[in-house]
């Protein structure tokens, strides 16, 4: 599989605090990468650096044909080119509160990428159907459950026809009984060949669908490899401790 996303020597600090340092990894096309680690480890900031929501001091991010070198001054155009490669699903869904489910999905294609309204509407309806929300086109975000909101968020990201989907803890803000419906949509996407980078606390989900797992601690990739090797047979003590903490009766 060819490399779709390549991160090289990414470093970021907030004032005195080093958030992460010299992060490098690659994501092959059509694969799923799970980024795991305790809160405050820097994993969300790493994900947000993949589309310029965070701007590290140095390092490069390449997605398909777009390349951003954070050590040089970024133009609006370069940033937009990088962003157009990915779609993002946020922890708090960040749906546009003033727009309907369909409006949330079509605004990007129509106002951001010049797709015509009819075509965007058609795609929007299709995507809503695919995430199990046919009939909810006209609902406003606050009329939907958390799980439904997050599925609209996924459809909104898909509507951009991105090369890669970025998920920032898509289920951590949800009530436990709503987690399943979101994860099942994500599993389906993974199986249909989407390239995904997922920051998650759902270890069983990561074990099931991730091709690659990165364990981040204190701003560094402590361990990386297949889900099998990192989650079932971790080599580093920090990984073992983390997994024991997060999965109470975890046996190594």
């Amino acid at each position, binding site marked *: 599989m060819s490399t779709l996303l390549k991160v090289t020597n990414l470093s970021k600090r907030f004032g005195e605090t080093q958030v992460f340092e010299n992060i490098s990894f690659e994501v092959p096309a059509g694969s799923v990468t799970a980024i795991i680690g305790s809160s405050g480890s820097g994993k969300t900031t790493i994900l947000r650096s993949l*589309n*310029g*929501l965070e701007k590290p001091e140095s390092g490069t991010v390449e997605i398909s044909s777009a390349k951003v070198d954070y050590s040089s001054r970024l133009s*609006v155009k370069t940033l*937009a080119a990088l*962003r*157009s490669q*990915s*779609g*993002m699903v*946020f922890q*708090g869904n*960040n*749906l*546009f*509160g*003033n*727009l309907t489910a369909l409006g949330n999905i079509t*605004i*990007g*294609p129509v*106002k*951001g*990428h010049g797709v015509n309204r009819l075509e965007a509407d058609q795609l929007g309806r299709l995507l809503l159907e695919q995430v199990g929300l046919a009939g909810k086109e006209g609902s*406003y*975000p*606050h009329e939907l459950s958390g799980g439904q909101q997050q599925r609209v968020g996924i459809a*909104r*990201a898909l*509507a*951009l026809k991105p090369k890669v989907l970025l998920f920032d803890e898509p289920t951590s803000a949800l009530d436990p009984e709503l987690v399943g419906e979101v994860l099942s949509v994500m599993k389906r996407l993974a199986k249909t060949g989407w390239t995904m980078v997922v920051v998650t606390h759902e270890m069983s989900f990561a074990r099931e669908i991730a091709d690659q797992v990165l364990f981040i601690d204190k701003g560094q990739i402590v361990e990386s490899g297949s889900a099998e090797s990192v989650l079932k047979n971790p080599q580093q003590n920090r990984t073992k401790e983390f997994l024991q903490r997060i999965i109470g009766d975890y046996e190594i």
Partner: protein
Amino acid sequence: MDSSSSWQLAKDSLWPLLQGMVFGTIPLTAISFALGLVVALFLAIARMSKLWFLSAFAAAYISVIRGTPLLLQLFIIFYGLPSIGVVLDPWPSAILAFSLNVGGYAAETIRAAILSVPSGQWEAAATVGLGKSATLTRVVLPQAARVAVPPLSNTLISLVKDTSLASAVLVTEIFRKAQELAAPTFQFFLMYGLAAAYYWVVSQTLTVIQGRLERRLNRKVAK
């Protein structure tokens, strides 16, 4: 003057006063408020700008407008500007003064309303390819409106009454009409009382409209 002739005068004054309201106070308020909101939006954006001179200009402007009396601003425009060669008629003077004044006050309201929209909305908009101005007009301002409507309604209702100051620069609005009707008859209590009643009716009407608008905006936007 006995009570029957007072009654007659009151009846005769209802129509001229209403004219003062409909052809003076209301258009003066509506035009000034609309222009004032445009001024306010630009000031609010300038105030939040990363360019220091824009932000400093907006801050200075707001400070001067809020720090000086409206009547004085009106007088500077109508009586002051001619001395530097700018002569404006009563109506343009009044509209200019009121819109600049509303702009200064509403700027802070609009700025606060824009800031009340969570930053996640800007981030999400950026990830779907919207630029800053598209994000502002299509995502942020519609949501900011919900927050801004109550304080802006206050500004509008204040403005209805503040336009009475325009009488001092010869604009024939309802208050000036009342003065003109009272002067020859010495019926000050009656005429000003009637004018007050008209102001109250308009303000109450606006309050009712405000309530409806708030309910409508609340229905659409997430709480």
